[in-house]
């Protein structure tokens, strides 16, 4: 479903361009939840941003195929309409725009791109209600402005509601678990399971901690360090990382 091949990418920084991804290869087939773990500065967020198409990142080498298409041929909104969802580590505020308005416009833009009929206001509200209930968010929250005045946990839950409504085929979730308390973590984790656990969907779950993986049991786990995937294994790899730390596990892998 998502095939990353020898990806090299640079980011614009204060001191000029800096190479972050250095030959990253990874494949996530449909039906798989693939967790990416790794130390700070390894390139996890860069990977998410490059996949989403954020300005300021330059791909210098390599390719990404998404559902058979060259991802880099598509603008960010076209990637979204093709089914790619990026869960943000720091969701952005859009003052004066309600979540309902934002998501309805976004969904209808996606549908238009795919040649589908736009949803009416009523149809959309029903969909939004269902998804919000799933994540135990009330509709009042959806009527509030996008991320304005939301706590960290609310923002992440709102990201999950957005994912539920937009119903992507592939989600890249960038530290969706950061800033969540135990209850919120469970809600978000169960949200990921109910929205994305499906034979025709895939997830790239970027996280620091095992605790989210206790809820969203990954099929495979990869370690990203120094801009490359240095090790891939089953769910037990995440447990070992948690127990022994990156250094120990990576040293063993290098040996």
């Amino acid at each position, binding site marked *: 479903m998502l095939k990353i091949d020898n990806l090299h990418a640079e980011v614009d920084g204060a001191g000029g361009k800096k190479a972050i991804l250095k030959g990253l290869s990874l494949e996530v087939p449909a039906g798989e939840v693939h967790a990416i773990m790794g130390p700070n500065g390894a390139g996890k967020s860069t990977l998410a941003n490059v996949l989403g*198409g954020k300005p300021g990142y330059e791909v210098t080498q390599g390719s990404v195929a998404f559902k058979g298409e060259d991802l880099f041929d598509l*603008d960010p909104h076209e*990637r979204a309409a093709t089914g790619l969802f990026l869960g943000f580590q720091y969701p*952005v505020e*859009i003052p*004066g725009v309600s979540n309902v308005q*934002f998501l309805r416009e*976004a969904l209808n833009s*996606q549908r238009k791109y795919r040649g589908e009929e736009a949803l009416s206001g009523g149809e959309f509200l029903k969909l939004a209600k269902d998804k919000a209930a799933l994540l135990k968010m009330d509709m009042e929250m959806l009527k509030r402005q996008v991320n304005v005045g939301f706590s960290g946990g609310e923002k992440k839950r709102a990201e999950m509601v957005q994912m539920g409504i*937009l119903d992507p085929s592939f989600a890249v979730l960038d530290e969706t678990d950061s800033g969540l308390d135990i209850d919120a973590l469970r809600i978000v984790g169960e949200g990921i399971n109910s929205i994305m656990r499906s034979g025709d969907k895939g997830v790239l779950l970027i996280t620091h901690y095992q605790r989210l993986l206790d809820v969203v049991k990954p099929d495979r786990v990869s370690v990203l360090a120094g801009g490359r995937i240095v090790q891939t294994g089953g769910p037990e790899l995440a447990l070992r990382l948690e127990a022994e730390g990156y250094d120990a596990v990576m040293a063993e892998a290098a040996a």
Partner: protein
Amino acid sequence: MTENVDLQTHDPEMDADAKAAAAANAGEYEHGWSSDIETEFAEKGLTEDTVRFISGKKGEPEWMLDWRLKAFRLWQDMEEPDWAKVGYPKIDYQDAYYYAAPTKKIELDSLDDLDPEIKRVYDKLGIPLGEQEVLAGVKGAKKVAVDAVFDSVSVATSFREELMRAGVIFRSISEAIKEYPELVKKWLGRVVPTRDNYFACLNAAVFSDGTFVYVPEGVRCPMELSTYFRINAENTGQFERTLIIAEKGAYVSYLEGCTAPMRDENQLHAAVVELVAMEDAEIKYSTVQNWYPGNSEGVGGIYNFVTKRGLCQGDRSKISWTQVETGSAVTWKYPSCVLNGENSVGEFYSVAVTNNYQQADTGTKMIHNGKGSRSTIISKGISAGKSNNTYRGLVRVGPKAEGVRNFTQCDSLLLGDECGAHTVPYIEVKNPGAQIEHEATTSKISDEQLFYAMQRGLDEEEAVALIVNGFAKDVLKELPMEFAVEAQKLLAISLEGSVG
């Protein structure tokens, strides 16, 4: 750096036609301006004779002509103001037409002949075809469009009848001068005196036409009054004069302008609007202004010098201005409220968008004379391209006005880094009991916001539109419903191509 500018976005051939026609008319002129003159325009330039021509053409009574002439003489001794943060070539007032300029819209055979760019904007705004034909000046479109827009003339007439039954007078100002001279005499120039400022004075001398509304005591006007529904709507754009009076306990909501791009051959526009609200009366005045802003290089475009003022004369009266300003090359406009009545209320809600080389210097004045009077000012300036957008506002509290409150919020949003946003608040308080609050913010549409919205599926244009409309929401929600939707689309169109 003064360079004379021709006030017409003209076609030399049409100028020649104009001269010929004016010359042909000269004989008639000698005989004292009979009102049945066939000529539709005065010769270029502004003299007492021009003023007489206009007044005569309209068949105005003597007192109106005298009023105009007095204004003209005053105007000759006045200086054009230069304090606004706008720059434009020096205007040659003798090189303009002041009455029904002959450079009328070119007639098109069909919409296929319309500039595709304009056609695209019409389509984007969702304007029905019949209405597009009228706006574009397609031959013979008038009747069709009257049908399309108003669903036949009889509907327009029935609106008029309904208003009559309610006792509301809704006329062109020219009609009102003849039909209701006492009312006009009583109020014309009372809120904006002739000598108020250079452009208002010019307007008083040469105003072409405009609207007159009178809502009698205790009457709630049964519909939104809109310039759309005015029968005599042609040729009123240049020096428009509007007078609205709401008697004790009356209510009226008036809608001015059009979201469709308005082109006009006359570059100089100087309108005057006067509102009067008596005890417990309320006037809501909404404007969408989309005059031609000039091209992307800053060539052409309308100069819009407008004086709008409302007088809250009675206790508990209320006047509310809402404006969405997206057009014109230069905008100079400060819809104001003079709050004389006790506990009277003034409101000003404004969205001003400038793109390319547009310049807007706009804001309001809230003059608090009445005890317990309150005012709210919400101004949202959006600048893009190489444009300049200035909020200029005055809040004045007189010495006897106890318990006055004002809240002002001025927000500026920048797109790109070549545009300017400026906030110039003046606060003059002569009563220590006044509560004045002023908040101002300046922000940019960030790459983060754009990327976030695009990652959810919006293309860049849609993303900008969404963010901008969110920014302007507090003002847009003050517009009448059907207007608000069009205004949202208009904001998006005005900012096309300003990002990326």
